């Protein structure tokens, strides 16, 4: 029912959609977070993601199980990238299936919002003239 993984290679959104589609579900919602080419007016060259892998998987599984309990999600795939990402590449793919559409939107939003707050994954933005760990300082 859940497929939660970290990858060091490009993510496969089609695989996530296929995973949650099995079995005649009514609605499928997909969120893809991808690498922006700028932050606060500065051009981003690339991103580097780092994860505390066993805990990141465990926290994403908790979030997915909560989405099943709270929104009645049928199947959920959460694939997150780690390592070096170029502009435009997908950092995260979240696919959710539910019986009806409204719950699919709510579950997908719940998963990405909570992931950003609790999952131990860190992002470094590399600029032409320096680098910064995102959100590290107030």
């Amino acid at each position, binding site marked *: 029912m859940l497929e939660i993984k970290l990858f060091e290679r490009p993510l496969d959104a089609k695989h996530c959609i296929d995973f949650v589609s099995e079995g005649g579900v009514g609605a499928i919602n997909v969120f893809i977070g991808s690498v922006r080419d700028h932050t606060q007016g500065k051009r981003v060259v690339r991103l580097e993601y780092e994860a505390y892998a066993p805990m990141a998987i465990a926290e994403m599984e908790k979030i997915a199980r909560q989405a099943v309990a709270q929104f009645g999600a049928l199947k959920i795939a959460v694939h997150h990238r780690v390592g070096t990402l170029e502009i435009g590449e997908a950092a995260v793919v979240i696919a959710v299936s539910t019986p009806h559409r409204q719950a699919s939107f709510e579950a997908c939003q719940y998963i990405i919002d909570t992931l950003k707050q609790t999952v131990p994954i860190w992002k470094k933005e590399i600029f032409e003239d320096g680098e910064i*760990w995102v*959100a590290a300082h107030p």
Partner: protein
Amino acid sequence: MKISVLAFGIAKDITGQRFLDWELGENAKLADLRAELEAKFPALLELAALRLAVNSEYANGDAVLKENDEVAIIPPVAGG
């Protein structure tokens, strides 16, 4: 007792290494370790937030540590 400390993201830059062996008194609590880490690496205090996890679970300061526990220093996360 000896525990393992793991540092991620900017915390790894601050401590200078991913893995640190740490010696603590018996029955030390997570808050004791946090105070020691912040004393040795004061730049940790400048972060927007700092959480600690024990054996891959977020834990509070009153958690009691045991020999060979793995404590992760978790600066503000930024996944997605």
